[in-house]
């Protein structure tokens, strides 16, 4: 059996999250360890954990770019269990492939609705080795924050359904309700240039502020500042 053909077959047939199909494949005596790449049209909180449980080596949002798909298949076939994923129109998790040489990788929640802004932010963060989970709006960001831990949140202000200010207030309220004290640093990302915007963000419970277009040096400096520590790509002196 040509294992690579099997991988292609599974990827093509997984038009949605087919956990039962993959679980059945896993139980098969021949295909139990079959490298699997999942192509999916949507993502939601908990998908990453389910993928890990099912031994899915990479998860890509459709439409996946040909080069990205090939890259992931090559990585998976080379035996690397974690692979790159791409940003899509809905929430998605990307796992960095590079082991950071300097500084710990961060779990970053990126709340941003504009696809171009998402693409630029992912490029900056992934290159620095950070793991990024993307939320398309404030409500999704709150849901994702509730479902898994993050080191820092990068929050757009103007988003559909729930804006970044309300999402921040919701997260801060949820933090207060938890048994143990937690505080996830939240940094505003905004194209606003109006007087008082920074104060408005801080009043909502945010810890920092970067202006759009997001520039990597300024972003990592601000992330380092709110974490009170250097971070990969920024204050520890690493170059993105």
């Amino acid at each position, binding site marked *: 059996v040509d294992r690579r053909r099997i991988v292609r077959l599974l990827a093509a047939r997984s038009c949605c999250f087919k956990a039962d199909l993959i679980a059945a494949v896993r139980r098969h005596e021949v295909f139990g360890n079959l490298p699997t790449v999942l192509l999916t049209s949507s993502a939601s909180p908990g998908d990453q954990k389910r993928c890990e449980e099912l031994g899915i080596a990479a998860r890509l949002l459709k439409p996946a770019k040909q080069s990205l798909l090939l890259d992931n298949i090559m990585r998976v076939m080379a035996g690397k269990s974690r692979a790159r994923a791409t940003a899509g129109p809905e929430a998605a998790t990307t796992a960095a492939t590079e082991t950071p040489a300097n500084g710990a990788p961060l779990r970053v929640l990126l709340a941003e609705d504009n696809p171009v802004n998402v693409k630029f932010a992912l*490029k900056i963060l992934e290159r620095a080795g950070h793991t990024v989970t993307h939320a398309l709006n404030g409500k999704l960001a709150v849901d994702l924050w509730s479902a898994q831990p993050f080191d820092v949140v990068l929050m757009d202000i103007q988003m559909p359904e729930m804006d970044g200010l309300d999402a921040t207030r919701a997260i801060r309220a949820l933090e207060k309700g938890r048994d143990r004290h937690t505080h996830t640093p939240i940094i505003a990302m905004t*194209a606003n240039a109006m007087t008082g915007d920074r104060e408005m963000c801080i009043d909502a419970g945010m810890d920092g502020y970067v202006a*759009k277009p997001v520039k990597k040096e300024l972003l990592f400096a601000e992330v380092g500042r709110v974490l009170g520590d250097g971070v990969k790509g920024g204050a520890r002196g690493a170059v993105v």
Partner: protein
Amino acid sequence: VAQLFDESELMERVDNDLEFLADTVQMLETDGRALMLELKTAVASGDAPAVGRTAHALKGMVSNFCSPAVQTLALEVEKAGKAGDEAGAAAASEKLEPGLEALVVELAAFVRSRS
């Protein structure tokens, strides 16, 4: 004729990744034009808050392409929308539309010239 965007700054911003730039220019072409259409609809219907929001989104998107001129045009629409100035928003959006189109055309041509 001066370029609408700063070529060297843009290439530095994308780490000289032409494929990435081509992808994002394509996104600007589709999503930026869609936002412009949304903006024109908001202007025509006199929905000043929607004008402000949409112009703000366009401004953020355009800002990635190192074009302060077009970014400023979007800012003017945003300011007018947020101030409830319908006539000002209409006038500013009439300048923004050709500016955005010209930027898209210039960026696409730049990508082609480098490919």
